[in-house]
């Protein structure tokens, strides 16, 4: 096996600033990315780090306040709900559904939108006309109506939630990726590739697509923020996963009901939801800024 070539000496210093380093200087990316990373670790390790079983009821320990208030019980850091289930453990487990829906729905919406956007932007003509027209019609239909209809059609459950998000939001990706593809196609390196005689499909996948990835990543991050809220809303009204699985939306619904009785049941999941949405948004916005040389200036 050949040794990897390492450049040493003055030549090593003549490198353009790496994209990764630019990212780390963007505070929004640091904050947002850091929080999401932490959340991801929590979601994966939930069974190991949760202090209690999130489903275990103990009516003797119902509606306990958080640890810093009078009447708290040791070991229940954020208190318990009316059935005596540990709020902190439920929050930690709730991140699993939230992130699962965010990752799966944003990836699927991105996949559909990107493929169609690339094709429309690169091949133009009829392909573009048909795809763009579908996107226009799709976007004219208000998202709330479409989600009411889709959930009515699919029934409740986490898969319907994901399907609804994908069906409604693939257009966001399609529109932006198409515009990006059109912009890339005008650049000299593409003209060069065509002159050399690269096949069209190969130019699209090997040359254009890699240059669109940064924009795509930023869009996916923003979409995940949207997906987390949609999932929370649907589990709030009881149209997402079954009620015994801990979700932030379900916890919020419980907190709203018991608002005069145990306000902390609303504060904890709402604060986590807010921080998550903000983190995805800041990460997406920050990435967009960091990757876009015009905006950076």
């Amino acid at each position: 096996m050949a040794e990897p070539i390492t450049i040493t000496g003055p030549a090593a210093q003549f490198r353009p600033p790496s994209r990764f380093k630019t990212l780390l200087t963007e505070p929004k990316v640091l904050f947002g990315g850091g929080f999401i990373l932490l959340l991801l670790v929590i979601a994966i390790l939930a069974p190991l780090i949760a202090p209690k079983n999130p489903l275990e009821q103990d009516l003797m320990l119902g509606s306990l306040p958080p640890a810093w208030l009078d009447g708290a019980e040791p070991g229940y850091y954020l208190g318990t709900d009316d059935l005596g289930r540990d709020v902190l453990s439920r929050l930690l487990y709730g991140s699993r559904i939230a992130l699962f829906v965010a990752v799966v729905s944003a990836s699927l919406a991105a996949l559909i939108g990107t493929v169609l956007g690339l094709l429309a932007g690169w091949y133009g003509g009829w392909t573009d006309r048909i795809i763009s027209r579908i996107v226009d019609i799709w976007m004219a239909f208000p998202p709330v109506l479409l989600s009411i209809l889709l959930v009515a059609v699919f029934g409740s459950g986490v898969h319907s939630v994901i399907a609804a998000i994908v069906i409604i939001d693939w257009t966001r990706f399609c529109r932006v990726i198409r515009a990006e593809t059109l912009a890339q196609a005008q650049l000299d390196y593409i003209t060069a590739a065509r002159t050399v005689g690269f096949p069209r499909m190969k130019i699209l996948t090997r040359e254009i697509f890699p240059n669109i990835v940064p924009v795509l990543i930023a869009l996916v991050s923003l979409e995940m923020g949207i997906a987390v809220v949609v999932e929370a809303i649907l589990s709030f009204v009881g149209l997402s996963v079954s009620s015994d699985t801990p979700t932030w939306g379900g916890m919020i619904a419980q907190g709203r009901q018991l608002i005069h009785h145990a306000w902390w049941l609303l504060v904890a999941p709402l604060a986590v939801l807010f921080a998550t949405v903000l983190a995805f948004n800041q990460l997406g916005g920050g990435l967009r800024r960091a990757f876009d040389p015009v905006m950076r200036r």
Partner: protein
Amino acid sequence: MIAISILNRLIMAAVTLFGVALIVFVLLRVVPGDPIAMMIAPGASPADILALRARYGLDLSLPAQFGVWLQAVVIGDFGTSISLRRDVLELLLGRLPATLELAFAALVVAVLIGGAVAVIGTLSRRTPLEPAIDATNGVLLAVPDFVWALALVLLLGVLFPIFPLSGRIDPTLSIDFTTPFYLAESLVRLRFDIFLDIAAHMVMPVLALALPLATVITRILKEALLEAMVQDYVLLARLKGMSEVRLVLQEALRNAIGPALSLTGVQFTFLVGGTVIVERIFSYPGIGNMAIDAVINRDLPLIQGLVLVFGAIFIVINLGVDLLAAALNPRLRHG
């Protein structure tokens, strides 16, 4: 000329509404799960089931069902709600005014708050206040109505319990309203005690709907104002000795309002969509709250009626924005 363009838009609106109706119908006919199965008592005879299917027109072919349904809708017959066993049109008309009052109040509040912050931000440019406003607004832009509503529940419902947490009016206060527009009617009839009670019930849902829109208005309007402030006509007015406040309010605002307006129109449709979840959180008796129950109960006739009403509202808003933009823009008016 302008009459033709208005006519064009009206025709387009009708076509869009027909499209919405068609999509609604097609989507809801592929629903897995028989609505009749949920209505019948266990042990009903097959003849009873057939009779019920015939009664709701579910035994016809799909195009025939659509034809029958569309004909009925045109004359205002939306069918009977399966879960509530009442006429859908009657249910919708009873609930719609509550939602309209909520949405319009929220629009007004959003324009006032968003406009005020944008003007203050413009007046305070080159001071430390401006980046503070921009940063705060940037963070708040990410907050959806769902989160606002619940944060308000905690802040104004629990921590400072000033406003009622749910409903539209205190049930003990109820006078005999002749219209379903309680807020407007109580004002017209000079019953200020009732007006204040209804207004107090609306504070939190209105704020939850208005604040996301206000942050968008602030960003767009402030950008447009800053751009207008460096134009020659503003410089001229400044040289004439006009005060900074009057410069912003009289000169810049007039020219910045156009771009802000068309965006506000689009965002207003999102606000109306937001009534669905916000009404739910505050148990406000509007069509949004009703929509969630309809979906949970799989009440197809009611869902169809609700989606058509929401669709019609969105179309009317878009039409209104187009016409308003044409009225405000002299080039479009005479073009």
